[in-house]
């Protein structure tokens, strides 16, 4: 495959925009190459102005490039602190589970709702087990494989879900549209509403804003189904 020169984007109305390939971010270039559209980016595309070589006591060495003309060390320090991170594993009917890392106050999560094509599921969390292993402390708030310790008590989470759905119904009523009418609107108008409702309900996206709009649409679809 010869070297790509530019990326051309063609719009529905026939207009086009283009960008030189060497101006693309490495990640985008790599993504396009993974799709088989071009060879991967060159092994060395641009020389950095400076490079740092870090040497460890055990002999390990690493290099990092800096695209800045003047470089001088200001300070180097380490921070030692106990960080608590949640690990949420989900069975997804495949060989491996899906794993999420929860960074925001992980031990204060009180419940989880799963909402989607497979229906709804509710899980209430409570600290059930603490295990110390060396310098690590593991607090388990739910474990499907340990039913004696974590008897599923989904009632609290389900009650909260019903409350949220009621609040959403109220928000929809204010606009004077039915769920179905909103679902038939163009994306920009729907997103405008999803933004407003998510603020009213106090829901934010954990990683991607798109997930929040998708969640609001799922709730809307559910309300639409309920209203027949």
């Amino acid at each position, binding site marked *: 495959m010869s070297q790509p020169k530019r990326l051309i984007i063609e719009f529905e109305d026939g207009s086009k925009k283009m960008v030189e390939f060497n101006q693309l971010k490495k990640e985008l270039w790599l993504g396009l190459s993974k799709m088989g559209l071009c060879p991967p980016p060159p092994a060395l595309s641009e020389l950095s102005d400076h490079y740092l070589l870090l040497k460890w006591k055990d002999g390990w060495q690493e290099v990092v490039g800096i695209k800045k003309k003047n470089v001088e060390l200001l300070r180097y320090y380490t921070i030692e602190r106990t960080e608590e991170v949640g690990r949420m594993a989900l069975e997804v009917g495949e060989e491996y589970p899906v794993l999420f890392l929860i960074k*925001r106050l992980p031990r204060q999560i009180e419940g989880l709702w799963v909402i989607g094509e497979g229906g709804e599921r509710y899980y209430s969390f409570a600290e059930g087990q603490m295990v110390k292993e060396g310098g690590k402390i593991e607090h388990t708030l739910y474990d499907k494989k340990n039913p004696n310790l974590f008897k599923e008590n989904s009632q609290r989470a389900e009650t909260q879900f019903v409350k949220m759905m009621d609040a959403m119904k109220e928000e929809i009523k204010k606009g004077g549209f039915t769920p179905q009418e909103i679902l038939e609107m163009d994306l920009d108008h729907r997103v405008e509403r999803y*933004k407003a409702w998510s603020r009213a309900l106090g829901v934010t*996206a*954990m*990683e991607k804003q798109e997930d929040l709009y998708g969640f609001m649409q799922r709730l809307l679809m559910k309300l639409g189904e309920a209203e027949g």
Partner: protein
Amino acid sequence: MVIEVKWIGFDFGQCLMDPSGLRNYLVIGDVCKAIGEPERIEERIHKYRVLKEKFGSYSIIKEGHRDLIMSYVFDGVEEAKEIFSIKEQEHLAMGSGLGEALHYLRQEGIHLSVVAELKKTLGPMGTDIVTRFLKNKGLIGFFEEMVTPQGRIDLRDGSIDLKYKGKTKEEGNLYDELAKDLRARGIDPTEGAIVGDKLTTDITPSKKRGFKTIQFIGYINYGSSGDVDFVISDFRELKNIVKGKKG
């Protein structure tokens, strides 16, 4: 040993207010999520850390370069400004045992003040970080005044006395003014105590003016000094060392 006092002044940062909960992922992360940009959390936390390297500490950024948090970290997103202040307050905690200790001290008839190194110009109550914190945590009723290098604010009527302006704890002239004010109210500095964490601003200069000194090490321990009368790591310990002085 128990001391009898008529007045106690509390330092604010890392004393009344415990910033342990102010983790970047919580504050910057929550703001990014609230403005609909969760994808930019890591990038903005990195920028905030870069600011810290430039100025030396997060408190210096917040007190003297707050505008940069908005322009550099949040790219001038106007909405982020108010949300940042709200989230910052939400994640601030009270020093350990503070509520119980303040109830006790008021029962003992001791007058309570906040003595803080506030660098930002004082506005109406609730617009600066200290009074906002006191209001949010339901503590404002315990304190009569807040003394700062920007002026003394009467927490009961919101009036501001500017004779403290430009005077600092570190130079000690703020304590000179305070001692004068207390004497005018019939309280000698020896009948007053300062509770704080920093030797250079809370302990040594106040001790030189005759105040009793109580070092709070519940958040950070800056070491010992001969100017320290008592050391506490939980405010409830004040119940064992302080009594109200009658008359």
